[in-house]
């Protein structure tokens, strides 16, 4: 079974947010209103965190794209009282929306703040609903949602492989964010495939995992920035 993972090179990320928008379009994520947004309720499965340090003119700015880490040892699934969030056979941490009772324990348990609560059923004008991706269900008020590693694309790849009577091939699917990333900072693939790019990059001396000390075993691996200010 492949272990799907993502490697994000912070050095290459320019903070453009193409990944953020690609994710919204792929996964039917609504824009909440201006008012809701001001209350911190916008939903962004992929989000670019930023860090600014220093004082003019010695300033540093760093971008950290943050999807769900799809932990191998996820703290969120353990607290769900109804099994609405669980690790599936592909190693992807999934949400089953119809089961979710909106208790938000998982949101509290996730140290990476990747989970989002639907405070309302966000209404889109009908015309805009035409752009819904039919492969991804829409969510309603009171459920928690988050990045799925574009699981529906994996499903399609499985289907395709089955139809052609072959096993799932390496590189047969990628997430919407990594597909669009202009600099190629976001890489996606099978960590257990030793020849894959992600497996190779995961061994880089620049590789690290966010809050690795918590023992969550994230499957999103970051590559640190290079020191670009030395001449």
């Amino acid at each position: 079974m492949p272990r799907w993972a993502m490697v994000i090179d912070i050095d290459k990320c320019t903070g453009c947010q193409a990944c953020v928008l690609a994710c919204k379009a792929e996964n039917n994520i609504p824009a909440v209103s201006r008012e809701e947004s001001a209350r911190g309720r916008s939903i962004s499965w992929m989000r670019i965190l930023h860090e600014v340090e220093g004082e003019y003119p010695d300033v540093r700015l760093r971008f950290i794209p943050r999807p769900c880490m799809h932990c191998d040892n996820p703290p969120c699934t353990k607290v769900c009282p109804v099994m609405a969030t669980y690790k599936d056979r592909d190693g992807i941490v999934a949400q089953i929306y119809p089961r979710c009772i909106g208790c938000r324990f998982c949101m509290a348990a996730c140290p990476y703040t990747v989970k989002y609560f639907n405070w309302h059923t966000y209404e889109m004008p009908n015309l805009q609903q035409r752009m819904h991706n039919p492969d991804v269900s829409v969510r309603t008020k009171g459920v928690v949602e988050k990045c799925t590693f574009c699981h529906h694309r994996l499903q399609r790849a499985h289907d395709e492989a089955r139809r052609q009577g072959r096993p799932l091939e390496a590189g047969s699917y990628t997430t919407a964010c990594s597909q669009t990333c202009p600099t190629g900072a976001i890489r996606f693939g099978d960590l257990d495939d030793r020849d894959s790019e992600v497996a190779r990059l995961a061994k880089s001396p620049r590789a690290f995992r966010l809050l690795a000390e918590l023992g969550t075993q994230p499957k999103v691996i970051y590559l640190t920035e290079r020191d670009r200010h030395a001449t």
Partner: protein
Amino acid sequence: MRYTRRHFLQTLGGAGVGLALSSFGFAASEKPEDLHDTWPDRQETWSISICQQCPGGCGIRVRQVGGRPVKIEGNPDHPVNQGRLCPKGQSALHALYDPDRIRTPLLRTGKRGAGAWKPLGWDEALGMLRQRLAGLQAQGEPHRLAILGGQYRGFMDPLWRRFAHAYGTPNYIRLNCLQTDQAMLAHVLSQGAQAPLSFDLRHARLILSFGCNLLETWQSPVHVARAYADTVSAAGGRTARLVQVDPRFSPTAAKADQWVPIEPGRDGALALGLAYVLIRENLYDDQFVRNFTFGFHDWVDDHGVRQRGYRSVVLDTYEPSHVAEITGVPVETIIQLAREFGARKPALAIGSRGVSQYSNDNLSRLAVHSLNALVGNIGQKGGVLGQNVLPFTPWPSFELDGAARRGVAMPRVDGAGQGRYLLSTDAFQALPQNLKADKPYSIDTLLIYGTNPLLSHPSGAGFSGVLDHVGFVVSFSPYYDETAMMADLVLPDHTPLERWLDDPLTQLAGFSAFSIAPPVVSPLFETRSTGDVVLRLAAMLGGVPALALPWKSYEDLLRFSARGLFEAGFGHVISIPEREGFRQLLRQRGYWRRELATFDDFWKALVSRGAWWDAEENYGALAMVLHTPSRRYEFYSQTLRRQVEEEARKLAEREKGLDVGAAVKRLAGELHLGQNEQLFYLPHYEEPSFRGEDRSYPLHFGSYKLMSRYGGRTGNQPWLQEHPAAFIESDWDPWVEINPVTARRLNIQDGEWVWVESSKGRLRAKARLYPGTRPNMVNMATGAGHTAMGRWAQGVGANPNEVILPGSDVVRGFGTLGETRVRIVKL
């Protein structure tokens, strides 16, 4: 089998991760035609198109399910973006599915701007316009038609131009603040460039950018991002260094290898400071300078007058300690940068920032570009290149009739090409004033296409009153934008995915290309492609316009023009990488093979794959990029001298008591060339002219474009509104960036609402304490603050043009945006 939408999403959707129990709410305001509550079949198809969210020129693929576009991805075979897209591109379906689109032609019924309209059929609407235009023609006053065009590339430009000409008006005026389809003036003056020159970012080993937001909005954002990523080699080291000179610590500055903070408006001085070190330390390319440049050393002109050369001016004036005083850049940094620029070959200096910020911009750009000449990085790999002209089939020629000939000979209403606007091809900036004063004559009918000056122009609000001086205003906007709201007649264009699109690309290094795309979907509403409308109008007018524009549709016009590509004997329709790789090999061995035997096959391939391209690398082709009178790179611009002197002679003839010498001086003053005659035609530094005294308005006001917005056109796209930027805490609300130290002095907290005030006006924004702000400056993003346009745009954000006092921009005729001083006041 047909499903209801909800049923469909619940049963087929979800793909295992989860099922929705949602119920869709339908907003009460929606019209019945929006209620497409059933899904067609589930057939998946992909069509190619071109992204129109900015002028970047990215190729796209549109995923459709049951014929309905549901997602946009990059076209992996397209040379601009190789399958990648930026956030605007990912949001582009919001343009098609904008619920606030204009759905039929409209006739104004109430007061201008009141928004009272009567829907019209196309025949009636076009008939109305035809009648008006035919009337003007009959009166022998075709020049009183003016056409205002915005930012676009492709055949819409020659189409409008030819229509205007054949009809008999000189007034086709483009609002040209970016000019991706025209050569930059500094390149015209120093190299005689006739088409945009390109910068070979991929192969440069040092990129010295003077305020160009390379990684955000410059030229073609995804293309540049790809080039940037390529400089990070697999081993982890960087093969090129990026140095960003900018007062503001922008995302580009953050991703650069070195950021050089500088006082606003001082780029030219810094460039000349580097030139000083390069010359003094003998780090320049002596051979190139000797063989291929003009005006480096002092020289004697045809009149026997001794002229100063670049070298002596630089050595006399731009000593680093002096430059450090002007720019605020330390002497050590100046020396370090210059040495690096001289040593790391090829090194590339880029100063073509886009919109003019300061009145000395053209001089700054000349100064910056002179660095490329000093190190001989022109026409070289990693340098400033020229691309091949696209071999389109020329359009048939035609003869003007007498009335049209008289019309086109009239002076233009914007005064471009003379006096203060001698160097501009279009001078939108002069329009409000001239229209108000009926100077040189009154305009009867104004057609506005592809631009929304009421939002985007710094004198925008002032422009709205001016429209009342025009008899009849026609807008082609697909959206109820601020300018369309003031129109008498609206002939709504399709949104991009509903029409034929074309995009010639010659401004990016390493290739020239022609992207083309047929409509992806049939139009959702009663709109029409403006290209078709112009052709229809020409046919309805008959006479010369009909002869000059013989095509039945825009598609016909494209097909006619593209035949030249088929016949050219070079270039190919783009293809999968493997095939491209093989072609590359063949080409290197000097072979070219025709892939498609007939034009019909060629056309079919072209419109299904999305582009034709010619990947010729024009290295070493100096003849291609040096078209000056001396056939050399001109440090001393003879082109500029000729233009100024010629205009001065005309001026002296017109005005009694003015001799040519005095006229030259006056013109030079208006063109911001300074007062020292010996320097007029050489790169040199003049002070920017800031407006608003220091005491009451102590802070410089800077404005910039965000990666997430291109002008105002994406204003009604809610995802982009929600995520304007990642480098700062931001949401739908406008913000002004203030240095934390400055804010402390003013007792302003992060997130607090404040007034930004200039002597022109004020706006409200949230204070964002951002240490990347120069302490004597504040910065704001442009492209928001709509007063119309739709539910997600109107009343959201703030428009910096409310406070910007546009200085006279003699190059683009658009207005300088960076010379306003402001103060911050607590609410």
